[in-house]
């Protein structure tokens, strides 16, 4: 069971009436297919994916390169249309959800604006598309800066508020990107291998920072990683995918409780879950 109660300020429900029932709760992906190209050059990236992320939970996708993880994330974020099937984000389509600024998307690279300082980058999602959310329209702009500053302090960048990305290390840049995602206070957080460019030590530190932030903001998370340990440390559920074409090979629940302390990687329960995931990953290769 996830421990903390959802905070009222980050309530997962978007404004407006929602269809009742469990179908509108969290992220639901049903029979989604996607093929790139056409004719003999066509390659099927996703062949009927079913997936559920209950509200307030953390689900991680793991699988070999090319199994369609990024494709699925782009579809869920409304950046790509599926060929068939449906995606529901709290009862809305991904496009509607992104129009309402309900999705925070974190790409593989930090994707910061090099001409903006750390604070400027974290403020960006609040400055863009201000008409979408009433809370953005009403808050004075100075408030954006205050929130950005607080988030950067949370991820340990209080000394680098006014530095440009080129003055920050890769790990620091990625922390700015994470602060930027949380600044939005979106009910849904979609992250595509945000730590893949970092060394193992940096990654381990960032995992726990990310968990702490998440414990406070309680978004519904769809996460991608290549690291089994990372998947287990972070998630409530791990979805293992297999390639050619992209399918769900199996679902592994992570019964570790929360909050998760730094030493959790060394417990037997952790290793058991890791082993279950490895088995699924191996089985389909």
């Amino acid at each position, binding site marked *: 069971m996830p421990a903390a109660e959802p905070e009222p300020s980050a309530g997962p429900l978007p404004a407006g009436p929602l269809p009742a029932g469990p179908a509108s709760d969290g992220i639901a992906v049903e029979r989604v297919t996607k093929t790139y190209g056409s004719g003999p050059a066509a390659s099927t990236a996703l062949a009927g994916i079913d997936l559920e992320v209950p509200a307030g939970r953390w689900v991680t996708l793991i699988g070999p390169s090319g199994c369609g993880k990024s494709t699925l994330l*782009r579809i869920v*974020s*409304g*950046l790509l249309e599926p060929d068939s099937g449906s995606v529901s984000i709290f009862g809305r389509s991904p496009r509607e959800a*992104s*129009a*309402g*600024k309900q*999705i*925070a*998307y974190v*790409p*593989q*690279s930090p*994707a*910061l*604006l*090099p*001409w*903006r300082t750390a604070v400027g980058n974290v403020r*960006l*999602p609040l*400055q*863009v*598309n201000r008409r*979408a959310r009433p809370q953005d329209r009403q808050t004075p702009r100075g408030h954006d800066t205050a929130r950005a500053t607080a988030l950067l302090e949370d991820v340990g960048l209080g000394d680098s508020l006014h530095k*440009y990305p*080129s*003055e920050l290390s890769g790990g620091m840049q990625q922390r700015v990107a994470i602060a930027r995602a949380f600044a*939005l206070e979106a009910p849904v957080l*979609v992250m595509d291998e945000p730590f893949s460019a970092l060394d193992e030590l940096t990654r381990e530190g960032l995992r726990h920072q990310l968990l702490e932030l998440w414990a406070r903001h309680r978004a519904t998370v769809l996460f991608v990683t290549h690291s089994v340990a990372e998947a287990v440390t972070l998630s409530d559920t791990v979805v293992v995918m297999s390639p050619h074409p992209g399918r769900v090979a199996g679902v592994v629940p992570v019964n570790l409780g929360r909050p998760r302390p730094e030493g959790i990687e060394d417990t037997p329960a952790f290793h058991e879950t890791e082993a279950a995931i490895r088995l699924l990953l191996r089985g389909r290769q």
Partner: protein
Amino acid sequence: MSWLRPSRWLPALVAFALLVLIWKLLADHDRYLLPQPGATASQLWNYPGLYLRNARSTLVEALIGLGIGFGGAFLISVVMSQISLVERALLPLAVALNVTPVVAVAPALVVAFGFGRTPKVIVTAVIVFFPALINSLVGLRSADPEVLDVLRSLNANRSEVLWWVRLPSALPYLFAAARVCLPLSVVGAVVAEFVTPGSSAGLGTLITEASANSALDRVYAAIICLAVLGVVLTILITVIERRVLAWQPSRRRT
């Protein structure tokens, strides 16, 4: 303040002295090849008003032409980057314009617009147009696709993407274009003055007249003025670039 150290300016000074020495030797060897450096210097010393007045008029033509050509190219590139139909319509025309030697059109422009400033400004604007257009187009397209994804996931509209991402991404390219276009604009103005012999002002005009009178010292005094003009403009753009692009890693280290 590293310019105060002799190791910074001494090599350049030595090279300059050598250049003047070779100039002097060549002038001694054949007085129709080059004027005496001393005679050229005294031209500048004795008639500063003449050179300043003509330099000013060339500079004004160059800068107006640059402003129109560069500004026009920038605006058109923004429209092209937003509406691909416009790009498909105008880019071939721009390429054709680029391979046409504008200098060849200059005499016709004089027939059309007389001996005033207009034909010179037009030649200058046309010469700088293409490099400005291409650089600006490439710059507007240089935005990081993952940054564009982040903006798209927030449902940012086109003008927000343009303002927050594409225009700032284009800035380094615009400065690169300015470095090319500034000297080019002076070339444009001078060449246009060459083909308008009746006009009264400009370093190009001064050069044509002095050459006709075999007054090589005046020709070279005017050329030195043009060189100084180019150097000053380039330094200016470099200073502005350093301030505006302070966030660029390569700029800060130098």
